[in-house]
């Protein structure tokens, strides 16, 4: 179980994440939603320990992650928002390096990498430098790197970005299958349709604060709205989107 307790992050006086608290349980897929700049990626980075929080606590299975950061990192897999990879390495070299850095047994890791590359249709390009990979291929490398050590916690920041339809469908099923095996998922995305199909509950963030934290079904009933999109619009979209669209047309056409 992943728990964030009153987590706050300030950058030079600007509060990016303000007193955020929620729980992501094992077996559940928790969607983490919010408009651009609402603090989603900052929360993800704090949860991966890439950046430090200003105050609050992040607990995994009841223990603050800072207590034994190394042990926590061993159990965590992360797909970042931007596919930054060492493009001078080949896909295979990168994944082998990740396995080595994680101290995984060489033979078993090689078998696992080989299998995952085949399943994600990347095996034929494994000796090609990442510099020549498309965005979707890079995303697949990130996914394999995140799954390689069979983590208990998966932090996915826009994992569907750049993936083709088939791989997207595979990933959707994969997330559900792994959650069914007791993994903890925190899943951030702007694709509300996907979130609605994949996640059992959602946390909606607006201006660094949580404005909703419940199952999608319960939110539908509570807010008397038919879709996650309408719930999101109600909670996190301040502007009149149709009016903005008209203003843009006026500006461009004028």
């Amino acid at each position, binding site marked *: 179980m992943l728990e964030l307790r009153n987590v706050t992050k300030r950058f030079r006086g600007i509060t990016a994440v303000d007193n955020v608290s929620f729980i992501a349980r094992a077996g559940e897929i928790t969607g983490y939603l919010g408009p651009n700049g609402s603090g989603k990626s900052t929360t993800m980075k704090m949860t991966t320990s890439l950046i430090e929080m200003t105050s609050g606590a992040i607990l995994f299975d009841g223990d603050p992650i800072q207590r034994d950061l190394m042990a926590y990192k061993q159990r965590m897999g992360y797909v970042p928002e931007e596919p930054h990879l060492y493009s*001078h390495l080949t896909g295979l070299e990168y994944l082998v390096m990740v396995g080595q850095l*994680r101290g995984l047994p060489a033979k078993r890791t090689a078998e696992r990498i080989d299998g995952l590359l085949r399943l994600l249709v990347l095996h034929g390009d494994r000796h090609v430098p990442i510099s020549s990979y498309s965005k979707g291929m890079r995303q697949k490398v990130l996914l394999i790197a995140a799954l390689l050590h069979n983590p208990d916690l998966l932090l996915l920041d826009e994992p569907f970005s750049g993936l083709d339809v088939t791989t997207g469908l595979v990933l959707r099923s994969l997330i559900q299958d792994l959650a069914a095996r007791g993994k903890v998922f925190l899943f951030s995305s702007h694709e509300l349709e996907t979130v609605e199909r994949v996640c059992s509950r959602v946390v909606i963030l607006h201006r660094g604060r949580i404005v909703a934290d419940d199952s999608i079904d319960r939110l539908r009933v509570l807010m008397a709205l038919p879709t996650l999109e309408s719930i999101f619009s109600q909670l996190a979209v301040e502007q009149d989107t149709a009016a903005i669209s008209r203003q843009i047309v006026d500006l461009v056409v004028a």
Partner: protein
Amino acid sequence: MTKVQFRILYREFLFRMVDLEALSAHAQGDASTLLGQFVALLLIFSLWVLLPIAFAAGGDARLSPPTRLIDGWPAQNILIATNMLVVGLFAVASWDSSFPNRRDVLVLSPLPVRARTLFLAKVAASATALSLAVIAPNGLPSLAWTLATSTANRGLLDLIFSSGIYRSFAAYWLTMIAAGGFIFGSLLCVQGLAAQFLPRRQFLRASGFLQLAAFCLLVTIYFSQPSLANPAALVAAQHQRVLAWLPSYWFLGMLQQLNGSMHPAVAPLARRAWLALAIVGSGTAATYALSYLRMLRKIVEEPDIVPGSRRRGSWLPIFGTAFETAIAQFSLRSLFRSRQHRLILAFYLGIAFAITALFLKTPVAQRQIISKLPGVWRQVSAPMLTSSIVLMIAWVVGTRIVFSMPVELRANWIFRIIPTGGAPACLEARRKAFIVMAVAPAWIIWAAIFVRIWPWKPAIGHLLILGLLGLSLAELCLRGVQKIPFACSYLPGRSSFHITFWMSILLLVMLIDYVASFEQRALESVPQFLLIPAILLPAGLVVRWQNTNTAQSQGDAVCFEAEPPPAVMTLGLGRDGALTLDS
């Protein structure tokens, strides 16, 4: 519209000479800081090296005017050759910025920017950078040379109203600009021809090798060219073939012609300079313009990637634990595949090669090893010992420098989210990487040479000392905060290290020469020989012990972002036990 576009593109291309990706976040993308440092480095070089040579280039004032002019030829040739080397190295360093890259094309193509504007902005930026590389080191030497050639038997007023002084000044600058332009244009021409005749993918692959080859050629020619700057040597039939390949002598001829001091011996050289300048100028303009226009289309049509193969990737051995292996293999692959890093290391090795070449050319070395006696190479000699020590030092220091420069800084998140074992594991991994990439190759090269040419006893003895020296130096380079090689940001301002390095290199070489002479004597006497490892081994072990202790005290802290020194320095008064800052 076009003027505004030109101005914006010109500025963008000029600052592209610096790789912003490598900068620390603290530098806030300030490329002008690095350009400023580059100019400062050139000015210091000019002040310490070129200025004394420029005074000497005026010739001995006690000699009669014609003899005096000839007396200054060797120094004038050094000035021209050094100017060509500086410009050449600059052209090599800014190799990739001479032509548009894929990002330029993809960003600018959809915009209403004409190819001509793009081309002119690029030419203007390159010309500005070239001017910077010529003007910064030659400013003071030009004045010194003009005064040195014009002051004999003249008062100040005579000097001011003499047209000769202005002619000398103009001749100096025209020659330096022409020589710099020649070398810069030649390198551009080579790139342009390669871009014309090779498919884009092959060009990208060849470009890296051409860059390294150009660097090696420049350094080799500069340091190994013979001294022929006297009339007899210049007209000698046996030297004509060599002179045909030494452009600095051609421009020496041009300088004499422009200065109005043309000697019959240098007249053919001056003609060759003008001819070469015309060929390179027209060739560069043609290939640059053609390749520019054709490359824009090629870049869009062909992917801008390093050609990859679908065959099995490069195999590398295991280097200890999984983490150490990961870091060592990552470091090796980064160095082999990053042109920028290879070039920086090659620069240090080139300097070592140059010092070695100079040592082997000294009269003492000539007497010791370049003797006609058969088998003299098989005798232990101080210049050979010095050369091996210099190469080892340059390799280790160069490796330290390239380790600190990142490859794709934003990709280092993978090292941050993975449990790495903290500073102690990082130290051990870096140590392995240093040994594999610096100490071992230098040692193996010299082992192959010494075991083959020297009797086995002194060979083994010196290799033992060389190995200990390399390991101790590697330990020295591991001091401080622990950083994963090629994965941490580089902070501008640390280049004071480079300046310190170059300022102290002369002292260092003298010290190494002294140590090598001592070692040469020690290799003949066991007690004296044992003294050297008896000093080196404990010194290395002490530094190693200190490094291990420091890393253990740092715990999990591996540094990924270089921090600038604080604006306000604390006095550390809290450490005396009387006052605690926390209280």
